[in-house]
């Protein structure tokens, strides 16, 4: 079980980081979502993986599954969900304002230069 969980976390993290590095709004949002899934799984697993054990103290139980990481991960899920919603709205706003979904900081001058180059190219093609 440890192996499966570890591989899952690894694959999710790798895919998430790859998508974040695409620097386009939609892939970045997906990537962040995958990355937070991986994080949540990881936090969940830090209390040791256990099957069929009671989470709360009980005099008869032979062992316990740690309830704290479960509580932590619940908080983390709620927070990451809210943050994703905020991110979607901000990136939508940025897309509508800027007309591009690129995630990089450019100044007006840079944009103008890029536009000028683009115009030159289209003129050349025509």
């Amino acid at each position: 079980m440890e192996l499966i969980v570890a591989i899952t976390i690894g694959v999710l993290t790798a895919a998430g980081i790859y998508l974040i590095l695409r620097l386009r709004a939609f892939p970045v949002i997906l990537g962040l979502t995958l990355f937070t899934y991986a994080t949540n799984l990881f936090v969940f697993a830090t209390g040791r993986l256990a099957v069929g054990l009671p989470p709360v103290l009980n005099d008869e139980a032979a062992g316990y599954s740690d309830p704290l990481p479960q509580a932590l991960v619940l908080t983390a899920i709620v927070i990451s969900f809210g943050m994703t919603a905020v991110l979607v709205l901000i990136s939508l706003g940025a897309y509508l304002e800027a007309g591009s979904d690129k995630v990089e900081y450019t100044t007006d001058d840079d944009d103008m230069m890029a536009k000028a180059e683009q115009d030159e190219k289209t003129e050349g093609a025509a």
Partner: protein
Amino acid sequence: MMAHWLIAPVVVPALVAPMVAYVMRFDIVMQRAASMAASVVMIAIAIGLMVATADGTVHVYRLGDWPAPFGIVLVLDRLAALLILLTTLLGAVVLLHASATGWDRRGRHFHALMLFQVMGISGAFLTGDAFNLFVLFEILLIASYGLTIHAGGRERLKGGLQYVIMNLVGSSLFLIALGTLYATTGTLNIADLAVKVREIPVGEAALVRVAAMLLMIVFAVKAALFPVQFWLPGTYANAPAPVAALFAIMTKVGAYAILRMHTIVFGPDTDAIGSLSQDWLMPAALITIAIGGIGVMGARNLMQMVSFAVLMSTATLMLAISAFTPYAIEAALYYLVHSTFSAALMFLVADLVLSQRRNGGALAASPVMAQNGLLAALFFGAAIAIAGMPPLSGFLGKLYVLDALRDTGYSWLVWTVVLVSSLITIVGLGRAGSTVFWKANDADVVAAEARARAEAEANGPAEPLPDRSASALAIAPSMMLMAALVAVTVFAGPLSRYMQATSAQLFDPVDYIEAVLLNQDDTKDLSSHGDDYGEHGEDDGTEDGAATEGDH
């Protein structure tokens, strides 16, 4: 009595902010009055907290009266009290500026977000639990997301998007670090962590070291250190100026977290960590200082230039912290106060300049401004402060830091980088100042202006130019910050003695640990559990008042 005041810096804004957002949402005057009143109350509380910690006692507030490693605690020591006072003071000044210049009207919910921001920052300074620190970071971040894109606009949204993404990745890293820490130590209470980490033998320290370094990266994102500094110039330069001024304390939250975690928990005296933090922090800070200096020189825009100056100022603070000696931390704390005020002042002055210039923030000649002389004087003062020239506190602060770093073994490198970058910054700021304030009087600019006006008149009856001069109320916040900087300079003696005591408290974590983990007789009894818990909880409820009274 002390017991419940401790949580007031978090509770007061948490109560006022929703009222501002919902009850007063259509009445800007009431919003201003309410948030200003809340700020004043919080300053009073912060002063009270500062007095309460002046004798060196560490106050602990146990939420729900649960005993320490299990329940969440808030801990108030000198460092927390100092930073809360700084936050509330800065918050009030920024609020005044935003109200006087009308920034708060250009979008919705400015005041509510501002209060939530202050709440998150104060909470982060107070909390004694690492996971709670994460939660409070998220609160201050989500408020800051709203504030950075306040008033909207293309550039602002693009800068804001980058900032949000950067911080979301940072938050995930924070969780991974906390998970690692919990898996190795079994606790997230800072005082308990301090005990547990010190018990870990060197041979088994690998995971703790990973956690310590991950946490450092997370805090470095907040403090904008190389290689995760690149978001700062884009975000701060495009954020509304009063927000950027408030963010002067945001970078300090990162610095504070490193200061707290990497002295009490991962201090240089722990076998498991050793000098690991120092080895990574110092080069990162040095490179960031260099980037800041070069950025100031290369910026084509006033706000961008100020952002790079702030980057450099924060990095200087981190450099002082990276030595992890009591004297260096003492210098760092003095520089922290100065850096916060001077960075905020720089942004507020830049905002006044921008509101009066015809061609905005571009560093090119533009017609003379309505209050050219006054703004030039303010800019001159702010530039002197942030570059570290005498007579203001920047000079004392930098001298203090350089003196503290004399014995690190790298002093030649540190001194060279700091001094050369300072020189470059002075040149950059000087060039910007002369372009903005003096070039306006150049013959060709004046002639072009006269020609433009003549043309406009020829086309028809000229509209009178709008009067853009700032009111006295809009200038007042900048003057207040200037006065604060002068005060920090004049009272450098008493202030540095306070910082000395604060730093000593950080390097002697025994008080902190004992305050949190010992003396818990009055808290809830965890030894009985299971079915009788419900009854027991009720019993405790009646004793609660007495229990918390006796807590301290």
